[in-house]
């Protein structure tokens, strides 16, 4: 599993939300390479190849991180800040996928350097459509620099 090339890292603590997100991705044929982590610490462990993920191939960072804001241990904004502080994770696209659209959350997310901020629509049909659009955009349309260009450039 750790040797598999991960395309989407889903950081989500609520099992129902995990299930729905996976369902929506699968519904749109985007569920092939998803890694799900359940809190902020685990997300950073995965991204930096620490702890349970020390065997992970750092040559292949995820193409997209879907990040919830309310998370146990470290919240979404703290995860985002650590990612943006490290050159190895700085270029990874991060989309915040959360329930609220409080102005303060939006402002802070963008000031730290989020790539996109999406409020999960209440209507599941709309949610599936949103997931389809963002998967298509970030995994197919969007271009990222090759991982070797920034892998290993630790501070």
């Amino acid at each position, binding site marked *: 599993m750790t040797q598999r090339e991960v395309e989407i890292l889903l950081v989500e603590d*609520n099992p*129902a939300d995990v299930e729905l997100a996976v369902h929506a991705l699968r519904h749109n044929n985007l569920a092939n390479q998803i890694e799900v982590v359940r809190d902020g610490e685990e997300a950073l462990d995965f991204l930096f190849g620490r702890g349970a993920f020390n065997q992970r191939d750092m040559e292949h960072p995820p193409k997209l991180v879907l990040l919830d804001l309310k998370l146990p241990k470290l919240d979404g904004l703290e995860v985002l800040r650590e990612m943006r502080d490290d050159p190895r994770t700085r270029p990874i696209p991060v989309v915040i996928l959360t329930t609220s659209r409080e102005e303060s959350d939006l402002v802070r997310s963008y000031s730290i350097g989020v790539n996109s901020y999406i409020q999960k*629509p*209440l*209507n599941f049909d709309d949610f599936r459509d949103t997931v389809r659009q963002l998967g298509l955009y970030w995994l197919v349309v969007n271009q990222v620099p090759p991982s070797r260009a920034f892998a290993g450039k630790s501070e």
Partner: protein
Amino acid sequence: MTIPLLRDSSVGRKLTFVILSTCGLALLLAGVAIVTADSFLLRSALEKDLQALAQIVADNSTAALAFDNAQDAQQTLASLRARPNMQQACIYRANGTVLAKYAASDATSECPPKTERAPTRIDGMNLFLSRPILLNKEVVGTLYFRYQLGEISARTRLYSLLVGIIAICSMLLAVVLFSRMPRLISEPISKLVETAHAVSTNGDYGIRAAKTTGGELGILVDSFNEMLGHIQRGDADLRKAQDELEQRVAERTNELESVNKELQAFTYSVAHDLRAPLRHIDAFSRILSEEARGHLPPDCMKHLDRIVRATQQMGQLVDDLLNLSRVGRQEVRRQTTGLTSLVDEVRKEIKEVAVQSGSTRSVEWQIAKLPFVDCDPGLVKQVYANLLSNAVKYTRPRDRAIIEVGSMQSNGQPVFYVKDNGVGFSMKYANKLFGVFQRLHRQEDFEGTGVGLATVQRIIHKHGGKIWAEAELDKGAAFYFTLGLEEPDAKELLIAN
């Protein structure tokens, strides 16, 4: 005192000037009077004296004249030598020729021709006296004196000098005395002035003027101190009230801040934690209905549909409530806003939503030209969005729905209105219209959360405006509002428009 130089001088200087000038003038007048009186008295005494002398000389000369004895007459006149100021004396015979004459050593010895002038006259520095010499009441000759008045003028000069010296000395003395005296008058005033200055610069009403004298100045100082006492007490009361008020405001602010924080945390939590389960209910119901289609009886499918709709409604309610609370916390950011285009935008959005939901209704919009106003465009757009969508909603039963948007002037400020010919409401319930969760229609007739008009009212109040409604059941409703615009701005903008 109108002397410009003295206008800004201290009271002490003014007093010194007044007293010195008064003293000086009095002394001068007295001196002049004394000298004048003295010289007048002296002169008249001298005149009398000379008259007496002339009488004696005339009496002594009658015999010499009678016998034309020049030698005797000469001797009589020689006795005048005792009067050093006697310049010249002559005795004329009745026919006017000189019988005898006398002259002081430095004077001319020629007698002037006899004249019939006034018996005594003063000419320059000389007193001239001529007097007939009688013998048995018959004029036998004339006596003539010329007397120098140098004595008198010397004495007048001396007196004038003395008066001058005394005046100068007394004025100097007055200056010296007065330079030590002003404490009596000017010092209490100066102290009062210093105190007043100290009070006004330091704002310290606890200072008191020292009372060093009685009389009017003492009363003035007392009154001043009493007045300061009043002010001090008033000031202290005011300060106390202010402190109390500040403390109360601080307490209230703290309370409000903590309540506000709680409220913020609450709404944040509502936004996250209340919406999440709703999403899950909606999602799993939909997934269930998709996956179980064909396996579940139609009734169960209907139930699932109910669940989805209830979830959507609750989601709408949560969103509306969050919006209401956001509007309450949001600051009004005024900017010049063209209401015509804003209303047009809202109308288009409403139409779009209606088209998307498959509605084929047509609404007759009567939108008048609206002014440019100073308001928060985002918030006022919410106002129009609510009022216009309400109007659309409540005209649904009408075949010909008419919605009118416009503005008018009332009491110098623009009043905006939205009128419709919809189902209206009874004015009995008008007071409930803007309350949260207050609805005047059944959910199955007209859907809604009862939060929209509460939000509208909050926005209007935040602008400092007012909102009210006029309606009649089954006839239609009209909503009026103002935006708390300052009169001149509003007028200018209306004109500019």
